[in-house]
C-alpha cells in the first residue's frame, strides 16, 4: 500500500469555534472512511512499535492501523478491543500526545500519526454498523461486587463477566459512568456514547445497581457476608479541593465538580426545561488548568458567559490539560491568565465581585523537575468576575476508608495496593483507578480495572482448588 508521507495529520472536521462555543454538541466531528484510510497510510508499521510502549493498555497499534489502511474496519475493531474495551471513549479523551502519539516515529519530524482519531473512527464505525452479538458467557457460580461505575469499575466488571463471574456494580449516583457521565461534558464526550458503552457491559450480564452508596447503604464487609467472593473498589477521586482563601464560600463560587455536575448530570444547560439550575454570570474565572478546568471554562462560555478566564499559577509549559483541549479552549475565546495565583475572592452583598491574584515568576526546578512559581511582591490585582470555579484537583472520598476496617490507605487518602495485582491489604478486596492513584486518566483507570480482574480471577480460581 502506498504510504502517505504528509508531515501533518489529516485534519479533523470540527464545528467552527464561533458556532460551537454556543452549543453543547460535540466539537470534533470524526473522520470519514476516506480520511481514516488516508491517515492510516501515514503509519510506517515500525518493527519495534514505539507507539505501543506509550499505551498503558498495550493496544496493538500498528496492527489495527494496518487494517484501517486496508479498509477492514471491523478487523481493526477486533484488534483494538482485544486490549481496550472502551475505544470510543479513549479515542476522544486519552492524552495521546503523552502516550502513543508522543512515541510515534512520525512525530520526530512533523506530526505523529493521529492514533487517537483513528481509534475513535474505528469505534464509531463499529457502533454505527455492527450488529451486537454479545453472548452471555457460561456462569462459574462465583460473585464479585464492584464499587463505582467509572472506567475502572466498568472495565473490571466487563472482564470478569466474560470470565463467567456474576458481577454486581454498585453506583452511588443515579447514573452509571463515573466522571464520564458527571464530569466530562457532552461537547467532548457525548453522553449517548457513554450510555451505549455501559449498555454493552450490561448486555454481557453485569448488573448495575445505581443509588447504592457503599459505606452507607451497605459496607464492604456486609457485601462479603452476603456472599460476594471478592470486591473491586473503583470509587474514583471525587472529593473536590478548595483553595482555602478568603471569600471561597461567597455566592457564585463553585467547585468544578459542582459546576460540571449541575450541567452534565443534571442537565442544567437545559434549565428551565430541566429543574436543576446553574448560574454563570457574565465574567467567569476558572482556577486551575487541567482537563477539568478546560471543561469548566468551555462550559461556562457555552452557557453564555462573555469573558471566561483560566487562572493558573504556572506557565504555558506546565499546563496539565490535554493539548487538544487547550487548543480548543483558546479557539473558543477562553482567556488564559497564566502565572497568576489567586489569594482572595472579593464579594459584595454576599456575591462574588472579583478575584484577587498575585503575579508569579518561575523559580528553579524543584525535586520533580517542575519550576515552581514564586509570588512577585506587590503585584496583586483584581480581575472583575461574578463567578469563580475552583478546579485545582480532587482526592478520594473518605467514605470507603472510614467504613472498611483493615483497608490500608495513604496519608492523602488513596487506597494502597500491590501494583501487579491491585490487591489491597484486605483479603479479597482489590482497588484501582483514581481511588488508588489520585485524579489521573481514563485509560489508567481502565488498565487498573483490567489488571484487577485478572488477579481476582486467579485468586478465586485458586481458592476452589
Amino acid at each position: 500500500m502506498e504510504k502517505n508521507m504528509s508531515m501533518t495529520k489529516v485534519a479533523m472536521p470540527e464545528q467552527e469555534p464561533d458556532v460551537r462555543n454556543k452549543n453543547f454538541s460535540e466539537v470534533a466531528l470524526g473522520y470519514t472512511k476516506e480520511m481514516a484510510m488516508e491517515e492510516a497510510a501515514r503509519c510506517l508499521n515500525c518493527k519495534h512499535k514505539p507507539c505501543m510502549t506509550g499505551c498503558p493498555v498495550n493496544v496493538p497499534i500498528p496492527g489495527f492501523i494496518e487494517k484501517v489502511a486496508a479498509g477492514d474496519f471491523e478487523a481493526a475493531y477486533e484488534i483494538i478491543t482485544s486490549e481496550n474495551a472502551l475505544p470510543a471513549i479513549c479515542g476522544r479523551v486519552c492524552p495521546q500526545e503523552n502516550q502513543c502519539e508522543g512515541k510515534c516515529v512520525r512525530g520526530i519530524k512533523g506530526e505523529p500519526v493521529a492514533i487517537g482519531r483513528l481509534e475513535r473512527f474505528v469505534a464509531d464505525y463499529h457502533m454505527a454498523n455492527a450488529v451486537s452479538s454479545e453472548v452471555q458467557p457460561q456462569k462459574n457460580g462465583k460473585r464479585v461486587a464492584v464499587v463505582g461505575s467509572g472506567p475502572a469499575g466498568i472495565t473490571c466488571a466487563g472482564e470478569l463477566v466474560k470470565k463467567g463471574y456474576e458481577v454486581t456494580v454498585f453506583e452511588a449516583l443515579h447514573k452509571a459512568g463515573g466522571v464520564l457521565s458527571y464530569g466530562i461534558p457532552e461537547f467532548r464526550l457525548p453522553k449517548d456514547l457513554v450510555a451505549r458503552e455501559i449498555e454493552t457491559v450490561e448486555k454481557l450480564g453485569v448488573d448495575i445497581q445505581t443509588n447504592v452508596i457503599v459505606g452507607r447503604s451497605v459496607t464492604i464487609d456486609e457485601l462479603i457476608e452476603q456472599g460476594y467472593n471478592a470486591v473491586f473498589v473503583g470509587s474514583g477521586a471525587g472529593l473536590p479541593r478548595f483553595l482555602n482563601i478568603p471569600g471561597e464560600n461567597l455566592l457564585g463560587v463553585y467547585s468544578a465538580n459542582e459546576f460540571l455536575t449541575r450541567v452534565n448530570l443534571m442537565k442544567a444547560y437545559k434549565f428551565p426545561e430541566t429543574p436543576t439550575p446553574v448560574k454563570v454570570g457574565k465574567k467567569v474565572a476558572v482556577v486551575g488548568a487541567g482537563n477539568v478546568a478546560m471543561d469548566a471554562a468551555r462550559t461556562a462560555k457555552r452557557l453564555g458567559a462573555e469573558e471566561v478566564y483560566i487562572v493558573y499559577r504556572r506557565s504555558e509549559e506546565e499546563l496539565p490539560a490535554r493539548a487538544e483541549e487547550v487548543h480548543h479552549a483558546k479557539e473558543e475565546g477562553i482567556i488564559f491568565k497564566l502565572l497568576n495565583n489567586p489569594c482572595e475572592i472579593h464579594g459584595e452583598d454576599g456575591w462574588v465581585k472579583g478575584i484577587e491574584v498575585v503575579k508569579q515568576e518561575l523559580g528553579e526546578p524543584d525535586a520533580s523537575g517542575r519550576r515552581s512559581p514564586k509570588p512577585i511582591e506587590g503585584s496583586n490585582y483584581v480581575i472583575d468576575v461574578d463567578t469563580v470555579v475552583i478546579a485545582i484537583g480532587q482526592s478520594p472520598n473518605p467514605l470507603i476508608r472510614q467504613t472498611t476496617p483493615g483497608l490500608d490507605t495513604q496519608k492523602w487518602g488513596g487506597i494502597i495496593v500491590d501494583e501487579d495485582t491491585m490487591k489491597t491489604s484486605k483479603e479479597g478486596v482489590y482497588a484501582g483507578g483514581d481511588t488508588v492513584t489520585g485524579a489521573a486518566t481514563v485509560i489508567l483507570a481502565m488498565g487498573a480495572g483490567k489488571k484487577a480482574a485478572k488477579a481476582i480471577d486467579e485468586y478465586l480460581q485458586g481458592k476452589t482448588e
Partner: protein
Amino acid sequence: MYKIVSKEILNSAVELMVIEAPFVANKCEAGQFVIVRVDEDGERVPLTIADYDREKKTVTIIYQVIGYSTGLLSKKQAGDYVQDFVGPLGQPAPLHKCDHVIGVAGGVGAAPLYPQLRKLHEMGVKVDVIIGGRSEEFVILKEKFEAFCDHVYVTTDDGSAGIKGFVTTVLQDLIDKGEKFDEVIAIGPLIMMKNVVKVTKPLEIPTAVSLNPIMIDGTGMCGGCRVTVGGQTRFACVDGPDFDGFLVDFDECMKRQGMFREEEHECKLRAAQ
C-alpha cells in the same frame, strides 16, 4: 424505581410518604437523610428520614410542598413510583445518654426531629418538645410526640393553637422557670435555629442544629453544601447534617441558601402554567 407504599396529607403544605427502599431501611439511623428524584431529569431533593421499618423495608419521608420538585413529588400517589431514592446519607445524629433533652421544631422541622427524640427516649432520656408553626394547621406530628414526650409545647405565630409567639419564647420561659436541660436539639428554619442558639449559648446549654444547605449529590462530591462551622469549611452532606449550634455561621448559611432564588421562582412559574 421505588414504590410509594402509602401517602398521607398532614396539612395543606406538608405530606408524608412511606417508600419501599430496602438498602436505606436496612441501615438508616436517626439524623440521616435520603435524596429523592421524582422522575427522569428530576432534581435531587434531600429529605430527612422521618421513620423507617427494617422488616417491611420502608422509609418514611415528610416533606413540605414548597417549590417545583416537592410539588412534583406531591402529585404522586400511593402505588406510584419515584425514579430514585438513595441513602442513608449523612452522619447519624450524635445522641448522648443524659437526663433531660428538649427538642425545638419549626414547621416541617418536626419531621427530622421526631426520630431523634424517640431514639433518646428509648435510651432512657427524659424528653420534652416545643413544636412551632405559622398556625394550628402547620403544627405537625403532635400526637406522635405525645406518645413519648413528657411535655409537648405548641406555639403558633397567630395564636390559633398553643401559645402565641415563637418557639424561642417558650424555651426562654422554661429556662427562666428553672427547668434544667442537658441538651437542646433545634431543627427548623435557619433563623429559628440561630435564635435558639442565642438563647442557649449564653447559658452554655449544648445545642445541636440540623443544617439543610442546597445539595446535589449528597456524597461529598460537589462541595455545594459547604458550611462554616467553627471557622472551618465542612460539607453538610457528609460531616452533618447535624452540627454544634454554637459553632455554625448561620448568616453565611442563610445567604448560601438563597443562591438560586431567582431560578427557583422561574421553576415555580413554569410549573404553574
